[in-house]
């Protein structure tokens, strides 16, 4: 980026940066250190706490409920990668075409759910899924598909899929816009020469669009993973992780352990475990996708 201004003294610079650094330390680093500390204790929030070394962590590794909630995070993530990215990609390719009507309108409408609070998305879908007054069962009844009618949020077998659909629904718009921006940057000459070689429709998408969007797809997959590892709000209001633990995700499990049973020591260990797992997965996906790293 070319030339730089003459740099002020280091102390001047840092005194300006101090507020940001302090806020960060106070909200991110000190709590993290504290919870590493407390994760070595058996502590229920009271005055007394017992040092138990790595016991919380060895318990965490053997904790079937924790791994079950991790599995739920993974199910949601995989379904989101397929559903969100897949649908968003198809819609983005179609919306690229000049003959699509009302493109601006579609773009605006499809992005709208992204700005809604996740809590509200959860409530809206609670209403959609509702047994007697929900749109979904209403539509099924109208189509004479009574046998398809389900207690969508009360059946442990399907609940994890029922809570995933609102998540997919909410975020398609974000990926749609990311993909549209990336599609616009593909030079039209590339398509023209492909057309001269006889490539059409699906072939063009498969052999040109997809490879040209490799980096963007990588970023999108990473976003999808990091977003779904921290999923909490909508599931909290839709099922609270239930019935039983069938729709519990990691954040919900940490919440229940810490604030339901007030096991703050173990809750800290879960939080640390969650952070390590999520960062690990994000780094792994970055490696696999060969995507760019964050360049300072």
């Amino acid at each position: 980026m070319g030339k730089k201004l003459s740099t002020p003294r280091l102390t001047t610079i840092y005194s300006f940066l101090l507020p940001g650094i302090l806020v960060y330390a106070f909200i991110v680093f000190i709590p993290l250190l504290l919870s590493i500390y407390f994760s070595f204790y058996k502590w229920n929030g009271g005055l007394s706490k017992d040092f138990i070394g790595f016991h919380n962590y060895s318990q965490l590794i053997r904790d079937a409920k924790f791994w079950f909630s991790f599995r739920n995070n993974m199910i949601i993530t995989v379904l989101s990668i397929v559903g969100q990215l897949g649908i968003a990609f198809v819609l983005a390719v179609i919306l690229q075409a000049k003959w699509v009507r009302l493109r601006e309108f579609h773009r605006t409408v499809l992005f709208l759910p992204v700005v809604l609070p996740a809590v509200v998305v959860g409530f809206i879908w609670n209403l959609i899924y509702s047994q007697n007054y929900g749109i979904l069962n209403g539509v099924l009844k109208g189509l004479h598909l009574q046998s398809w009618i389900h207690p969508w949020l009360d059946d442990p077998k399907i609940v994890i899929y029922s809570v995933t659909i609102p998540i997919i629904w909410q975020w398609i718009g974000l990926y749609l816009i990311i993909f549209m921006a990336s599609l616009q940057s593909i030079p039209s000459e590339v398509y023209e020469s492909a057309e001269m070689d006889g490539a059409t429709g699906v072939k063009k998408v498969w052999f040109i669009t997809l490879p040209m969007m490799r980096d963007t797809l990588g970023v999108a997959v990473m976003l999808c993973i990091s977003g779904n590892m921290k999923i909490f709000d909508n599931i909290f209001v839709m099922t609270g992780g239930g019935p039983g633990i069938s729709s519990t995700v990691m954040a919900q499990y940490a919440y229940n352990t810490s604030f339901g049973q007030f096991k703050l020591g173990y809750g800290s260990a879960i939080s640390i475990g969650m952070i390590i797992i999520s960062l690990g997965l994000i780094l792994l996906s970055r490696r696999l996708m060969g995507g760019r790293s964050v360049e300072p």
Partner: protein
Amino acid sequence: MNRKGAITSVKAVFNALIAAFSVLCIFPILWVMYSSLKTQQQFSVNILSLPTSFHFQNYVTAFWNGKLYRYLGNSAFVSATSVVLTILIGFITGYFLSRFSFKGRNVLYTMFLFGMLVPVYGLLVPLFIEYRNLHLLDHRLSLVLPEVTFALPLVIFLIESFMKSIPIEMEEAAYVDGASLVSTLFRIVFPMCRPVLSTCIIISFLNIWNEFPFALILINTQELKTIPVGLTNFVGQYTVNYPQLMAGIVVSILPVILVYLLLYKRIIQGMVAGAVKG
């Protein structure tokens, strides 16, 4: 004719497909909006029909009896305070990170971007413990610093990359004329950043307004709750009366929807830039 006809029908199919998805996105929201004007009885007769008369009582109940006015007020206070702080800190930090190279710059830059990646929900329990030990829970200002922290990375990033696009000469001239760092920063650079600053304000506002988990655990007093948490209380009270619930939902998202409809171009642009960076 055949080939042309085929192409026309393919186009029609794709147009219909896109339209179907748009309807899927917007209909649930519209359904909640118009159903909120029905009485419970009208709603239970036909859940999909449009209201025949407007039953505004649901809104009065939601706003006053459901205490949503109080939650809205709290959200407005927390959002306004946090946005001002976020912009101030974000602007200064973004400026220094983009204009100067100094010892520790890259570490700081990575640290702030790390904030976009770290699963913030892992901080729920740790932050709660810290706040409890310091007796900071349950105060009007409890939420401000967490909100600022989670909004900062995007703002810093947007400002940092915007600074790269504005020429350095203005600042140089100011320094040559003997202007101090502070006055250059706020008299010259700040006004130049107006476009990106407004994007930052809108997006931080949306994120802070919508934030749920930290508001859930750091605030316990009914009087201090923000709208997402307050709404869950409200919903808990009126579970059986659907139109009433819907009126509450509409009240709580109306500010967000208005901001979006007025400024959607900016919002989309800023959120995508931030997302791709993270």
